[in-house]
């Protein structure tokens, strides 16, 4: 059962002044005008705008007499949730006082930090609509807001808005008021949230930091062009997440940075024949190095994020004894983070990353030059949310084409060093998808109860390759084919991931034994650690037991036929 309270927002035309609107509405509604309110609020959300996705706004509001509180408003109605809070700053859910707001936010926000996005000056004129008993049945608020810019930048005015909120149990009255607002006052509903407007006014992306590639490829695009368009977006993502990683804002900045690097490595590996190998080598080394120097911190982040779940299975009497283990993990994480930060701030990182970006620019420029003038405008493509079309002509195909003059240091059409460069991207990606899938089927079929753990780990790595190919290039084929395949792959990767994670975690915990023995409470902790490692071993065994069923679904004969028919057709 939900306590749904209807709520709608209406755009107020600039020409409409509050007094005239109130006078107009008063002809049809019994209105009470409340004293105007003004305040400065700070809107917050996670970097990836999880509250926006959930249809809610969260704000720090000043409290009369000092201090602040956090107030959550849900766009579709529902109760306003409030919690006392400190001054506006980065906040984790666990920092909030226990209560309804924290309970509501926890599953939405998870491990992400709530970050101040904008400071707003708000002037509001509240109105109440009464029924025949003099009871408030709808609340209206005419609001003007301005984004406060840093320094002496002044304010940026946002579009004025009228918010209508119903009262529980008086839905018919709300609908009547809504009709008056649209039919009588001529107002139109708006779905653009206040926070979106504020973020856009500050030059940000209202949808938040991007983690998904939105390049819109066409099957006949040149492979080097398509691949480099994807790589440029991934490189943008690495850069977008670097600051939050170095500032340790939350664990997901590093996670998403690593995902973008891993995907980039995957594209370079799977599409390697679209690039001259001598150019590719150093950049593949750079990306591998970034992956290596960030690995320990991420592994420890995972250990700590999963800590509550891990210890939940340990008997209560031994759970308290595990606290020194957690303390040690935190210390290891701090040390790993410092080492990682040193590397990511090093000259090596700066220079090798700059070189990688220059490589991408050069490939993009060369590919565009080879393809001739642009046939499709870059930028937002209709029907593809945030998608960018790839510039340039359709791929001509490498076979039978004569070699052309190349730009210095880059490959051109027909360059034997990069035979796939000018081939249609669908043909090359499809061929790679079929190839990786077939190898997974072959390797997975050979796994039995006696196979070493490394066999499952290798299969998981292969699975990641396939997943990235499908995620980055799957848009070239019908979603009805790609989605079930991604689903079966995700299921398989789930058990393989658990198998591998538990092994890494158990190994790390075992390696801590000597260090732990020397700490206060060490002997008790060691005993409890044994129970924890046993539990990880059991979970690893369970994951392994689930492998056969998931793999059978992934490698079913029907599925193999679909893969060959769909992705192998143009190869």
């Amino acid at each position, binding site marked *: 059962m939900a*306590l749904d*309270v209807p709520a709608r927002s209406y755009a107020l035309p600039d020409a409409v002044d509050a007094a005239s609107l109130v006078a107009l509405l008063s002809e049809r509604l019994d209105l009470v005008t409340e004293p105007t309110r003004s305040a400065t609020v700070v809107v917050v959300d996670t970097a990836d705008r999880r509250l926006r996705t959930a249809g809610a706004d969260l704000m720090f509001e000043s409290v009369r007499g000092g201090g602040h509180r956090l107030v959550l408003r849900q766009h579709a109605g529902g109760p306003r*949730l409030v919690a006392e809070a400190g001054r506006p700053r980065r906040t984790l859910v666990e920092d909030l006082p226990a209560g309804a707001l924290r309970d509501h936010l926890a599953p939405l926000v998870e491990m992400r930090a709530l970050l101040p996005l904008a400071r707003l000056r708000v002037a509001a004129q509240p109105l109440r609509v009464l029924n025949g008993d003099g009871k*408030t049945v709808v609340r209206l608020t005419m609001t003007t807001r301005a984004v406060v810019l840093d320094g002496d930048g002044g304010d940026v005015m946002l579009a004025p808005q009228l918010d209508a909120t119903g009262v529980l*149990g008086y839905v018919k009255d709300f609908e009547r008021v809504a009709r008056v607002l649209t039919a009588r006052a001529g107002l139109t509903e708006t779905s653009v949230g206040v926070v979106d407007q504020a973020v856009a006014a500050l030059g940000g992306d209202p949808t938040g930091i991007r983690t998904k590639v939105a390049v819109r490829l066409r099957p006949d695009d040149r492979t080097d062009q398509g691949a480099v368009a994807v790589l440029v977006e991934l490189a943008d993502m690495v850069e977008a997440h670097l600051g939050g990683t170095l500032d340790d804002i939350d664990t997901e900045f590093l996670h998403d940075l690593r995902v973008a690097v891993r995907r980039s490595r995957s594209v370079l590996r799977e599409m390697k024949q679209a690039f001259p190998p001598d150019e590719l080598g150093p950049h593949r080394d750079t990306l591998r190095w970034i992956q290596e120097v960030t690995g320990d911190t991420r592994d420890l982040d995972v250990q700590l994020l999963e800590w509550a779940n891990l210890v939940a299975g340990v008997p209560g009497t031994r759970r308290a004894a595990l606290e020194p283990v957690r303390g040690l993990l935190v210390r290891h994480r701090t040390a790993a983070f410092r080492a990682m930060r040193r590397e990511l701030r090093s000259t090596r990182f700066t220079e090798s990353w700059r070189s990688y970006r220059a490589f991408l620019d050069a490939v993009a420029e060369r590919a565009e030059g080879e393809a001739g003038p642009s046939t499709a405008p870059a930028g937002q493509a209709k029907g593809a949310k945030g998608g960018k079309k790839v510039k340039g002509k359709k791929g001509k195909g490498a076979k039978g084409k004569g070699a052309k003059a190349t730009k210095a240091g880059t490959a051109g059409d027909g360059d034997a060093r990069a035979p796939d460069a000018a081939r249609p991207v669908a043909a090359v990606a499809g061929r790679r998808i079929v190839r990786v899938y077939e190898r997974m089927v072959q390797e997975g079929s050979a796994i039995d109860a006696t196979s070493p753990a490394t066999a499952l780990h290798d299969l998981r790595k292969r699975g990641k390759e396939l997943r990235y190919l499908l995620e980055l290039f799957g848009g070239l084929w019908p979603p009805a084919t790609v989605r079930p395949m991604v689903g079966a792959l995700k299921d398989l990767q789930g058990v393989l991931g658990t198998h591998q994670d538990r092994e890494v975690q158990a190994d790390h915990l075992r390696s801590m034994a000597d260090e732990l023995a020397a700490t206060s409470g060490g002997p008790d902790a060691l005993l409890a650690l044994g129970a924890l490692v046993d539990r990880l071993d059991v979970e690893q065994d369970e994951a392994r037991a689930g492998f056969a069923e998931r793999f059978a679904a992934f490698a079913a004969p029907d599925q193999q036929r679909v893969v060959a028919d769909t992705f192998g057709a143009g190869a």
Partner: protein
Amino acid sequence: VKVLATYNIKGGVGKTSAAVNLAALAAQSGLRTLLWDLDPQGAASYLFRVRPKVKGGGRKLVRGRSDIVALLRGTDVEGLDLLPADFSYRYMDLALDASGKPTRRLRKVLAPLAEHYDLAILDCPPSISLVSESVFDAADALLVPLIPSTLTLRTFEQLSDFVAAEVDRTPQVVAFFSMVDRRKRLHRDVVASLPESHTTVVRSAIPAASEVELMAVERTPVVVNATRSRAARAYADLWADVRCRVGV
């Protein structure tokens, strides 16, 4: 959800005034608050301008056959909802008696609302009956208004003994003075002495003030309508005491 109940065997001692003002203060402090007007006279519903009508009446409600969410009404105080009174509540004793485990019924009725509210305040009718026994079972704390008089102590001790002896799930008792007339020496003496000898009695005291009586005319809690009045300040003190004692 924490459940409080304003209760006294006597009528006209300030139960409803305390219930509506404490509920308003709770909502203003950010707690999602429900007020259940259990009194068939419907004074709390009247104060919030909500029609004292419950579809299906009290019988269907206590049997758990009503869609309780559909019966709720938002009040003019943001964050405060009301489960209105109904004249059929005068037969609630009979309805409870006809149901299984009557003293546990009200707790069961409230159970589906627990996820939506941080606090529920039950405004009880004056009596000792199955309704009050069911209220005692549902409540984490009883808020008992006491008019400072010679019989006050005796009545209060009777209630405390009854709750301790007869109720399985014993609620905490928090008593406070109500309708205090500082011009009367007896009132001053009782207000000063009783909290010394009885730890369940808090020091905050609601004055016999005209603004409290005017609530029936204004149909708004004094803590909303006359925030700086003596009565509003007294209710704020009482709310602070209750929060501290009950841990809301």
